[in-house]
């Protein structure tokens, strides 16, 4: 092994020389080189908050063309993990807070790929034979658990993950999906995530990540997405692509609620990088190929701004035209953008979203980059919504049974999209549901009922395709995958499923069992609606990885709420009571058993008869006669009187008196 490093060194040296001296070689080399790019997208949100989306992408060339197992940018831990477990694709996300689909949008690439359920979500596709998938998954969870300081290893148990056919991800076979809704996300998960970056958080855009300010935000989701084509299953060899994204929703730090309720629309708070992060960008990560900051203005906002511009035409006649809103009246930017992109979209004729690009290569410690946005006029807009707003909730009360309901409400904003299809007779709105339910929630899938616009519908009318694998106690969760087709004019729809609450064994209860048990988020996918944002770029050669990611067509996807089901929990102080009761029962049992064993029946009967005859009570006499008759013997009158009974009673009284005297004595002296 000793000769290996030397060889890589020499190859690296040669490569670097080639890059320096020959442009042709440089172009050739870059194809096979590891690359890193960092990008930050900022987007003002309608509810006075700012979305910051960090996107880091590291690529490693395929093993065949790279330098063996050695990397100079790509994190070795990830590469090893990919090679060891034959991971074809994997996504791990840590999320705190909830994505507000109403206010922050549900119909753009950011929301459908970066809005994640609270806690940890992990899915992975393995390129191994079917029988080895579970083993690979278990190993992967343990590795990731160690790598990210999180309890991902709890996903190892077969009750927490599920395999499914087609509901969640198109690539079927070898896919495993698991979530941990209760996992708390903290800096100790972020630090190992940042360690995967070549510059960590010491330089470049990641230096903005001031822990207190990003964890003070309203939403925080760190995501790690991995694609590899190492294993020759797909024809294209692109090596490993590691995509790390951090999405945070922040609010201006020093902002205080405006107290004037009289004004209908308030001025949006002005912000800058330093006011939301508390830091400025002091230069790029030198290892990064591209490091850009983008500011995105949404379609709705652009429309509003254009309206505003039209109103102000008289005062400001310099209309920029389709080039963008360079001198728009709505807001002011502290730094002039280098490039402006307009979205290319045929469907939206009105206006399209605008992207401002800043390259931070020319900024340094002495001239830090601090983008600021100052609003001049109050603007109210709304984000594009998914065609149906979905929410999931529990119905019923008590510890025995309940109902899971998923309700869809039309957002009414998709009419523009649908108008193209309206000419057709059978305009259908497709929604896929993928839901995993833990085994102790025993869902009766036959109770599935569908309501469309307040009317019960036959399931066959709405459900196009259905795949259900019922839960198995203590083995596997229940998985439901549904393809629903609603009429396009649907206003509201609802699905209900009844369930029984199961009982757990006492050692299966998690800590804080009285809080209740989580049902992980369901995933709602609208496959007919693709989110893709294509920006008109001047030169396509220098393509940004984030923008090309936005261009990819992916279906609109949203997660529902995590549900909390209160189950019957035992009184956990019960073991003490149980021990006491068990001991009592045992004592009674053994006592009576010993009593029976050491008893001599014949002897006792004789004594009983004697005493009975001695007392000559009417009732006992009668009873002994009755018993004699029952046994079929001749009843004989009692003969020998016993002398001991009075003696025993006097002795007993004496004993009691002595004990009482001792007790009194003790009490008196202990005072």
């Amino acid at each position, binding site marked *: 092994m000793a000769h290996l490093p030397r060889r890589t060194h020499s190859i690296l040296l040669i490569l670097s020389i080639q890059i320096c001296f020959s442009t042709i070689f440089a172009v050739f080399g870059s194809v096979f080189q590891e690359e890193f790019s960092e990008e930050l997208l900022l987007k003002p949100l309608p509810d006075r908050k700012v979305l910051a989306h960090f996107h880091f992408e590291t690529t490693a060339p395929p093993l065949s063309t790279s330098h063996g197992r050695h990397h100079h940018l790509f994190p070795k831990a990830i590469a090893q993990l990919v090679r060891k477990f034959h991971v074809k694709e994997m996504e791990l996300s840590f999320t705190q*807070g*909830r994505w507000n689909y109403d206010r922050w949008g549900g119909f753009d690439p950011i929301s459908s790929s970066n809005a994640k359920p609270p806690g940890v979500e992990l899915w992975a596709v393995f390129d191994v034979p079917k029988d080895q998938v579970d083993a690979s998954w278990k190993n992967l969870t343990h590795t990731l658990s160690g790598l990210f300081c999180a309890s991902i290893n709890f996903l190892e148990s077969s009750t927490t993950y599920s395999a499914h056919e087609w509901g969640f991800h198109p690539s079927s076979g070898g896919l495993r999906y698991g979530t941990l809704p209760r996992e708390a996300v903290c800096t100790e998960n972020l630090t190992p995530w940042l360690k995967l970056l070549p510059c960590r958080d010491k330089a470049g855009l990641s230096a903005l990540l001031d822990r207190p300010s990003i964890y003070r935000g309203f939403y925080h989701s760190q995501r790690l997405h991995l694609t590899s084509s190492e294993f020759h299953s797909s024809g294209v060899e692109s090596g490993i692509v590691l995509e790390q994204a951090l999405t945070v929703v922040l609010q201006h730090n020093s902002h205080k*609620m405006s107290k004037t*309720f009289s004004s209908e629309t308030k001025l949006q708070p002005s912000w800058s990088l330093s006011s939301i992060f508390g830091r400025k960008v002091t230069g790029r990560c030198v290892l990064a190929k591209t490091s850009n900051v983008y500011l995105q203005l949404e379609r709705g906002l652009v429309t509003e701004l254009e309206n505003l511009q039209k109103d102000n035409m008289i005062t400001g006649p310099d209309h920029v035209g389709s080039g963008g809103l360079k001198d728009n009246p709505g807001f002011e930017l502290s730094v002039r953008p280098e490039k402006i992109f307009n979205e290319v979209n045929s469907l939206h004729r009105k206006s399209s979203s605008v992207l401002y690009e800043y390259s931070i290569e020319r900024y340094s410690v002495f001239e830090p980059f601090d983008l600021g946005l100052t609003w001049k006029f109050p603007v109210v807009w709304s984000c594009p919504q998914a065609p149906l707003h979905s929410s999931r909730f529990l119905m019923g*009360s008590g*510890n025995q049974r309940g109902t899971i309901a998923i309700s869809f409400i039309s957002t009414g904003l998709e009419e523009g999209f649908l108008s193209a299809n309206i000419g057709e007779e059978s305009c259908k709105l497709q929604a896929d549901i993928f839901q995993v339910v833990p085994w102790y929630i025993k869902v009766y899938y036959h109770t599935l009922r569908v309501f469309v616009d*307040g*009317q019960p519908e036959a399931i066959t009318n709405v459900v196009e395709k259905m795949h259900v694998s019922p839960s198995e106690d203590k083995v596997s969760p229940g998985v439901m995958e549904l393809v629903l087709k609603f009429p396009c004019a649907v206003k*509201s729809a609802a699905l209900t499923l009844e369930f029984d609450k199961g009982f757990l064994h006492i050692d299966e209860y998690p800590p804080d069992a009285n809080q209740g048990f989580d049902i992980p988020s369901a995933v709602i996918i609208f496959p007919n609606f693709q989110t893709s944002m294509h920006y008109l770029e001047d030169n396509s050669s220098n393509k940004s990885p984030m923008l090309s990611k936005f261009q990819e067509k992916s279906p609109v996807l949203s997660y529902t709420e995590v549900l*909390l089901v209160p189950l019957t929990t035992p009184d956990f102080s019960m073991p003490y009571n149980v021990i006491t009761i068990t001991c009592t029962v045992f004592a009674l049992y053994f006592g009576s058993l010993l009593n029976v064993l050491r008893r001599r029946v014949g002897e006792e009967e004789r004594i009983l008869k004697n005493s009975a005859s001695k007392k000559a009570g009417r009732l006992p006499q009668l009873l002994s006669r009755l018993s004699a008759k029952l046994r079929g013997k001749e009843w004989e009158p009692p003969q020998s009187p016993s002398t001991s009974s009075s003696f025993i009673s006097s002795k007993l009284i004496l004993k009691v008196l002595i004990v009482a005297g001792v007790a009194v004595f003790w009490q008196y002296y202990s005072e």
Partner: protein
Amino acid sequence: MGDSESESEAPKVKLRPIVRLGMFLISHSHLLSVVCCTAGVLTLLLLPLLAKNTYISENALMPGSANPMLSSQEVSEANGLVKDLTNLDLKPMASGIESQRLIAQYMSNLGAEVSFQKFYPQSNQFHPLHFFSSPDSATIRENISCSSFGLNTVGIIRAPRGDGKEAIVLVTPYNSEKIGLGEALSLGIAYSVFSLLTRVTWLAKDIIWVVADSKYGEYAAVDAWLRDYYIPVFSGLGTQYAEMCHGLEENTITERNMRDGFKRAGTMAAALVIKVVDRSEQFEDSLSIYAEASNGQMPNLDLINIVNYLAVHRQGLRIKVEKMWSLLNCKWLMILGEILESLGHLAKSLNPQWKFGIPAADYVEGTATLASSLYYQALGIPTGPHGAFRDYQVDAITLEISSRVSSNNKGRQNDFLLRGGRLIEGVIRSVNNLLEKFHQSFFLYLLTSPSKFLSVGVYMIAFALLVASLPMVAASLYAHANNLDPSFEKNKSNHPASAANELGITLRSWKWLYAAKKVLVVHLWGAVVLLLPYFICQIPNCTPTTSFVVWVLLSIFSLLILFWILGSPFYYVNASQPQQREWALLKSVTISAAFIGLCLMSVINFATAEIGALLMVPMCLMAHPLKLDVKSRKLRKFSRVACNLALGFIGFPPTAFLVFKGVFEGFDGISVSDFWNWLESIWAWSSATYLYIGMIHLPCWILCIHVILHPC
């Protein structure tokens, strides 16, 4: 009954101490029953002495560990709302939903999600088949008129870093048609807390603020909202009535909120109902806590403890719980208290470690509180809108803050809002700290003061003592009735046993079945009596008095019909059997039935069983045929006759109710219609007490009267 059976098989087990003990108890049952009964009543009177101080059992709550963040800034905002609301009220031409819209505007300005919930009032109808099940919301909407609806305004703050699985509910009922100052102030308090909570960083659970439109009753509004929250109806009118009755679509925000429909936020951890009454207090602001929900269910004691702790130690409010005011001036109670106090002093002088005496005044107050606590639990009617939450297993209490605010004193009002707001903030913060749901502290308790409670282990003693004498007496009566049999005596004197005699013994031992049949028939009649009000309610234009009279007549009629159909069991047995044992057996079976009934009821609603036992146990134990007593012409027997008559009088439910009402509230203006109204309220709230009265108490009373008037 078990004891009497084991007695018959005595030959084998005669020497067993447990059997001997049983026989001893049965043979001394007269003395023991007297001792047990008096001990039971005495323990009940001693209960205020045995009360323990409350303590916060769940450590995670940590009440008062953080400084209140509510400042005068929020209070001044809240003042704005109060002023706007009162101005709105002064305005003559305000449309029905003006105030809701104003509140919604305020809420959405804070950044909360606002939604409206429309509901239609429903009359409390007695449905015998739906007695235990909650009413189905689909069946109720028969006659919806668009003019009469209530509109709840619901605002939700999503916890910024929470996962949205749990929520805390704030409820402020107010009458949207006429907003009083108290209601405006309660909205102000809730608003100040709400506006603070939109900014705080520590929030882990979502906050739901329900502004309940109490036009048709506070409970109805809260209940309607909860029903939509927990058992929504997807089909039929449920989702469409919003479109049917339009009238809200004006500005865009409201329209949007209406369209988005019902908003939800996870499992409810706790609910607080805030009310302000402008009962002018003379000295200081005070806070009343109402906790009783339907069928005597109580919220977790920890919830009351936090409120009590924060109100007393942080905000300096005086805490009150409901009391029987008339008991406070009771002479004999005062004397009893003084006796107990002096006993306590005596005990203390003997041994300084014995501390059980409490001051006489405290004792009287504790007894009054205990009595009211028992009464409201026994009634089974929730004492406020919080009762609706308990039906869905959510812990909830009503906080009624009474102020000495006069409407013109601005500074005083600010101070009041600040203190009320800080109290609510503290409670919410405590509940927010809670990781699990309330489970640490007691659910079964009685309060003797806001900071003293009696747990189930203590107050069970009184009931157990009262009830313990019943099986003993039943067994002894049974044994006695069998022993008194003349043929039995004969059998003993000449001992060659024949087969015919044995058959006689077997027949005799099954004789109680006749009595049991009779008891069963009377209990069946009780069930019939329970169902009668359903039909009486169908009669139009009925005053309570006439309904009551009709009910009594129908009951008697049905009793007669039952006996006619079932072959008049009253006189069926008597022809062949001696009368003397007949009544004893009947009494024995009656007592057993009463025992079983009381024990069952104590599981469902303890307080009802306790009060019922107080009335029923002496009556059942004393019942003795008048004829036998009158014949003997002794003073002791005459006193028994008097006792029997008095207990029989007080044991009849209507007379018991009227007598107690008269004692506590004065006898003037009492009529039988009061009883009907009371009963109507009980069944309207589907309280188990109604079942108890009809199925256990009334049949036992009838049977006791039958024993008393037995023709021996």
